[in-house]
């Protein structure tokens, strides 16, 4: 057998711990037949003895103060062959490091070394005691010592198994172990302590933090650590056990036995550990130690001793009563039970077991830890425990509990016997009664027989008489049979008729069913056809809108899908969106009921808008006056069609087609007078053009022919004196005064020339052109610019400078095809607008000719154009009875509101997720940095909450929001935000397991109040992977389904408790997408692989798997009616699935 030097060293250390007289026998027993090893260990012992006191002092203590090798152990340092990784614990005298052993084997170990400056004899002795103690023991529940040596500076250290675990009480609470499992775990601890006792070691500091629980193959394994103040039961663990000198207070008060509290070292034995184990079991069961640690901490040393020695702790079941309601509830929840049940579980055996271990007089405690563990085991097996005085009833109750099945069987047999016996007796008595009744019946029968014989004789006499009567009846029967045969024949005839009727009825029913089926089929076909037509039309509408096509055509298509009574409404969001788009750019329009709108004129003060129009050609026109602000109709004048307001706004002039002028008082609209002007014989297509001087009472009037193709004569009248002033021949039928009233500009449509007349002289001052067909002209209010609209094949608006009479810009107006239109300047001459046959309103900036706006949606040819006096709106009229209002500057965006911009700190993480509340008044949105609530009514943020959130569910009453907070998971990644060292350290401290933080901080579900995002509670998710991959809440909010990154399982969590209600194991190795049905019954999952799976959450049936796509599935959505779900894959396809099948 080959033993390493390390093994020899351990054996040497163990031998040193023995009394000198017993060392030889100990070494002989330990080495057995291995003589060589025995020789090596004895040589070591001999050398140790020969070295005398030299080895009794540490190297550092032998150096002069100025020679002391003082240095701190740093991460990465090599101690022996161990590379320091990190410090994982520190006590008063020693420190524990996590280290890597590189050779001869590579493994992660724990290395305990005396702290710098603490290497006094006392501490070294205590340190060696622990090393010896651990070396003596070999138990799966005790940390093994692997190596021991001293650092280069002489500080002794030893290397032991690295225990990655958490305190036993924390483990039990975190995993919510019930009482039974806690006791089972405790028994394992007892076995370890018993082993230590058998090796002659008393731990003396047993407490939860010195018993760590790790998981081996998923099973919890407790490990006893920290034998730092252990003591030998016989002899000494080391020759340097000076630290337990008189009056030193060794141990932890809350777990310290009364004799340990006395500090009489000689009086401490294994029963002290039994007391500490009793305290541990007490805490595991009741959730707190017998004496409140805070009280002990606050008390002085003498008071602590007095409490431990004299005060009797309450039983565990009574201790629960003394807790606050919240603590009691927490203790019960941590044991997966209710407060009442927990008290009942502890009352009785467990109370006695614990209280026996906690006896002040150690002679009344369990003799050994094994007895203690056995008694706990008896409790688990429902056997009588030794801790209780055994009454007969108690033993019987335990017997029954232990042998439940045999006792139940015996009880059943006994019950069967009793019931059987009772039944047998009852049947025997019944049978005896029956026999008695039979005898009585037999006697009665004999009596009746005699009476019957007498009656028979009487009957014989009567029979003769009856035969006579029978012959008579026979005759009557023959007659009746004859009648019956006749009735039978009649019945057959009726039956046949009924049968024929039934057949006819059946045929009718079948025919009706066929008709209904045919009708249903036709209806279905019609609906399908309508749906296809709708889809095709919507697609066409989208194309028309994209190509800026005919908006009225779009509206026509959309109107065709307005549902008629009894028809299904196929319209959806896309219809509404298209309808909105089809409205064009106009703000508003209203109907004038005038057939057409030929002219629009504002009063100088802007209060009134007059429109003229008429129906069919030849009909008399009529004028209507509107309140410009409210669009209310104020007045209507019939048989007149041409309009203008006087410059002072006090009069409205209207002209009939025959040239008769009417004057009306503005406001009261009473007639002021009328007079004839041009001697015109109207033709059906003829109309009158007028213009009024801005500075005088002169009116210019001329008849127009159809579309103004013929030139005309213009008459000038003074409408105040009603006298003719001048007659301008071949002037043209487009009229406009200059602002100073000195000139009248006429457009000759015949020659296409523009004539500028001197009004006072009645002569042409200047001629401009030719410009082709003139449809409309306008002079800017500053008198500087003349605009002429020529709606040719390529329509233009030409500008002239009226001061220099030089031609200015030419503005393109598209194709108007010689249809008439209008041009107008805004009141401040900043804008110039034109509209005509292409139904488009165009606006330019006068000074630069830059297009300002092109507005569509008129629906009809535009003939009249007028700026509102404030210059902010355009009014148009044309070949419809509508007046439309257009904005001069389009709103910045009519549809889209940019609510907020999220910082692009980490583009891959800044995906925004969002959720509307049921009432659609709030939008909850979140990204990597924050969760925010937007009030949709005024588009402001009403609340914020920091952190990386994913909003999942809003309650129907809109008071609760469930959100996944992934802040910690996100922070655990290499985080570019946390660049400074301190932040990184704090983040890692928050997420990596340490002794202080045994488990990483998890992702949490937060239950928040709306709309303020106040935190109601949190539910921690037990991490099974590096972050949540997919998560969704059920529509009823009772569950959350989620998958972890890198894990296939889908977990169903109850949102009220955070408990995992169900674990689904799908076929995918990673789940990417989850979707609940609207009734929360079905869950659809999909991920890596081609399958989607349907899970019925009301049953435990296996899932239904569908081979859905060729590649992984990334998205799933459920329709609100629960009949259909959709899947989308990275193979660039998506599919619809019906859950109800074909009808």
């Amino acid at each position, binding site marked *: 057998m080959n033993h390493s030097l390390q093994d020899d060293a351990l054996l040497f250390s163990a031998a040193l711990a023995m009394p000198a007289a017993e060392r030889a026998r100990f070494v002989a027993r330990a080495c057995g037949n291995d003589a060589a090893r025995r020789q090596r260990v004895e040589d070591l012992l001999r050398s140790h003895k020969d070295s005398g006191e030299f080895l009794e002092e540490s190297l550092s203590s032998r150096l002069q103060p100025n020679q002391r090798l003082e240095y701190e152990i740093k991460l990465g340092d090599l101690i022996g062959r161990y590379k320091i990784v990190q410090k994982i614990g520190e006590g008063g005298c020693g420190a524990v490091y996590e280290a890597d052993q590189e050779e001869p084997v590579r493994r992660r170990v724990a290395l305990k070394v005396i702290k710098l400056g603490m290497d006094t004899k006392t501490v070294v002795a205590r340190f060696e005691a622990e090393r010896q103690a651990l070396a003596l023991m070999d138990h799966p529940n005790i940390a093994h010592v692997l190596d021991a040596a001293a650092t280069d500076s002489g500080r002794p250290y030893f290397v032991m198994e690295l225990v990655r675990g958490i305190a036993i009480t924390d483990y039990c609470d975190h995993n919510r172990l019930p009482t039974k499992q806690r006791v089972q775990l405790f028994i394992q601890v007892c076995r370890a302590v018993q082993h230590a006792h058998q090796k002659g070691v008393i731990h003396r500091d047993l407490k939860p933090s010195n018993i760590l629980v790790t998981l081996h193959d998923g099973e919890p394994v407790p490990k006893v650590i920290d034998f730092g103040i252990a003591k030998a039961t016989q002899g000494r663990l080391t020759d340097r056990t000076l630290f337990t000198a008189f009056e030193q207070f060794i141990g932890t008060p809350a777990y310290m036995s009364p004799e340990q509290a006395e500090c009489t070292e000689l009086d401490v034995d294994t029963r002290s550990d039994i007391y500490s184990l009793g305290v541990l079991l007490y805490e595991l069961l009741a959730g707190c130690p017998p004496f409140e640690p805070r009280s002990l901490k606050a008390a002085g040393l003498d008071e602590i001793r007095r409490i431990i020695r004299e005060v009797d702790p309450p039983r565990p079941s009574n201790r629960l009563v003394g807790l606050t309601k919240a603590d009691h509830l927490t203790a019960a929840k941590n044991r997966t039970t209710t407060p009442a049940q927990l008290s009942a579980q502890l009352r009785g055996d467990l109370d006695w077991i614990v209280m026996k271990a906690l006896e002040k007089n150690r002679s009344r405690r369990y003799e050994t830890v094994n007895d203690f563990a056995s008694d706990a085991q008896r409790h688990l097996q429902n056997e009588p425990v030794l801790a209780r005085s055994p009454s007969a009833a108690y033993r019987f109750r335990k017997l029954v509990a232990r042998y439940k099945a045999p006792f139940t069987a015996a009880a059943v047999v006994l019950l069967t016997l009793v019931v059987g016996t009772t039944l047998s007796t009852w049947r025997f008595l019944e049978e005896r009664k029956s026999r008695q009744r039979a005898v009585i019946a037999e006697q009665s029968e004999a009596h009746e027989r005699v009476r019957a014989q007498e009656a028979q004789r009487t009957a014989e006499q009567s029979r003769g008489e009856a035969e006579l009567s029978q012959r008579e009846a026979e005759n009557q029967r023959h007659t009746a049979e004859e009648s019956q045969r006749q009735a039978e024949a009649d019945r057959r005839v009726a039956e046949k008729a009924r049968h024929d009727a039934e057949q006819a009825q059946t045929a009718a029913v079948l025919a009706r069913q066929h008709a209904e089926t045919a009708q249903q089929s036709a209806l279905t076909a019609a609906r*399908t056809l309508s*749906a296809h037509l709708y*889809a095709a039309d919507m*697609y066409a509408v*989208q194309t028309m809108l*994209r190509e800026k096509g005919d908006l009225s055509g779009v509206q026509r298509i959309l109107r065709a899908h*307005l549902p008629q009574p009894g028809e299904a409404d*196929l319209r*959806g*969001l*896309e219809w*509404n*969106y*298209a309808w*909105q788009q089809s409205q064009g750019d106009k*703000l508003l*329009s*209203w*109907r004038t*009921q005038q057939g057409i709108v030929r002219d629009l004129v504002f009063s100088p003060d802007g209060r009134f808008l007059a429109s003229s129009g008429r129906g069919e050609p030849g009909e008399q026109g009529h004028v209507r006056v509107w309140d410009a602000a409210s*669009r*209310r*109709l*104020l007045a209507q004048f019939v048989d007149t069609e041409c309009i203008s307001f006087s410059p002072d706004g006090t009069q409205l002039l209207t002209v009939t087609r025959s040239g008769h002028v009417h004057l009306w008082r503005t406001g009261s609209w009473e007639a002021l007078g009328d007079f004839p002007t041009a001697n015109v014989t109207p033709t059906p297509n003829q109309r009158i053009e007028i213009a009024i001087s801005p500075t005088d009472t002169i009116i210019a009037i001329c008849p127009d022919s159809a579309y103004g193709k013929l030139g005309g004569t213009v008459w000038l009248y003074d409408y105040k004196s009603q006298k003719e002033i001048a007659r301008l021949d071949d002037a043209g039928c487009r009229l406009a005064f200059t602002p100073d009233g000195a000139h009248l500009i006429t457009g000759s449509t015949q020659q296409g020339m523009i004539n500028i007349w001197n009004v006072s002289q009645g002569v042409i001052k200047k001629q401009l052109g030719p410009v082709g067909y003139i449809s409309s002209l306008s002079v800017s209010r500053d008198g500087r610019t003349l605009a002429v609209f020529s709606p040719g094949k390529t329509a233009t608006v030409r500008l002239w400078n009226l001061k220099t009479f030089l031609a200015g810009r030419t503005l393109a107006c598209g194709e108007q095809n010689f249809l008439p239109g209008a041009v107008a300047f805004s009141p401040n001459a900043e804008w110039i607008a034109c509209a005509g046959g292409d139904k488009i309103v165009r606006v330019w900036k006068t000074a630069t000719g830059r297009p300002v706006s092109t507005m569509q949606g008129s629906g009809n040819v535009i003939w009249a154009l007028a700026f509102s006096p404030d210059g902010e709106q355009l009014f148009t009229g044309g070949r419809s009875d509508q007046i439309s209002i257009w904005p001069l500057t389009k*709103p910045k965006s*009519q*549809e*889209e*509101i*940019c*609510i*907020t*911009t*999220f910082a*692009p700190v980490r*583009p891959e993480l*800044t*995906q*925004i*997720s*969002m959720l*509307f509340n049921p009432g*659609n008044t709030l*939008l909850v*949105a979140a990204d990597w940095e924050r969760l925010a609530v*937007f009030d*949709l009514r005024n*588009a402001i943020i009403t609340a914020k909450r920091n952190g990386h959130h994913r909003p999942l569910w809003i309650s129907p009453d809109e008071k609760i929001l469930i959100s996944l907070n992934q802040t910690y998971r996100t922070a655990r990644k290499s985080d570019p935000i946390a660049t400074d060292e301190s932040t990184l350290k704090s983040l890692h401290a928050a997420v990596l397991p340490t002794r202080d933080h045994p488990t990483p901080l998890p992702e949490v579900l937060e239950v928040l109040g709306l709309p303020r995002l106040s935190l109601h509670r949190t539910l921690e998710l037990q991490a099974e992977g590096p972050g949540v991959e997919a998560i969704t809440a059920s529509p009823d909010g009772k569950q959350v389904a989620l998958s972890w990154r890198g894990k296939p399982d889908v977990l169903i969590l109850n949102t009220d408790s955070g408990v995992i209600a169900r674990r689904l194991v799908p076929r995918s190795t990673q789940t990417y997408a989850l979707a609940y049905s609207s009734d929360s019954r079905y869950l659809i999952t999909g991920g890596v692989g081609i399958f989607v799976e349907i899970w019925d959450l009301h049953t435990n049936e296996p899932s239904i798997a569908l081979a859905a796509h060729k590649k992984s599935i*990334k*998205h799933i959505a459920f*329709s*609100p009616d629960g009949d*259909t779900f*959709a899947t*989308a894959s*990275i193979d*660039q*396809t*998506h599919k*619809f699935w019906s859950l109800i099948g074909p009808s």
Partner: protein
Amino acid sequence: MERYENISAMQFSPDGKTFWATTGTVLKAWQVQTQRELGSLPLNGRIGDFSLSSDQQYIGYCDNTLNERRLMLLRIPPRTDVDAQLVTESEHSGSSVVRARIPGATLLPAGDETIEPAASDMTAP
């Protein structure tokens, strides 16, 4: 059934009639009954996640253009607004005053809301 650019999000409309998915820069719609494409809403930017409000009046979406992430809200007039306008055009054809309601009116400057006719307006002088 359909090949297209990879989608970033998808959702059935709240009334269940249509199915919406973001493919690149547009929000596309399909009719569930016929599974035919209905068209698309040309939204600004490259669309990430999106959500439809239950009244189908709002579309919230994430604009993933370049390095910026913007939360956008698209308001579409509810059908009641549209229907109101349609009713107006058919019901009041014989009256002298129009009652009109404009889609998207809430986004426009104040003063352009519904024009309610007074009783006296119904009779021309």
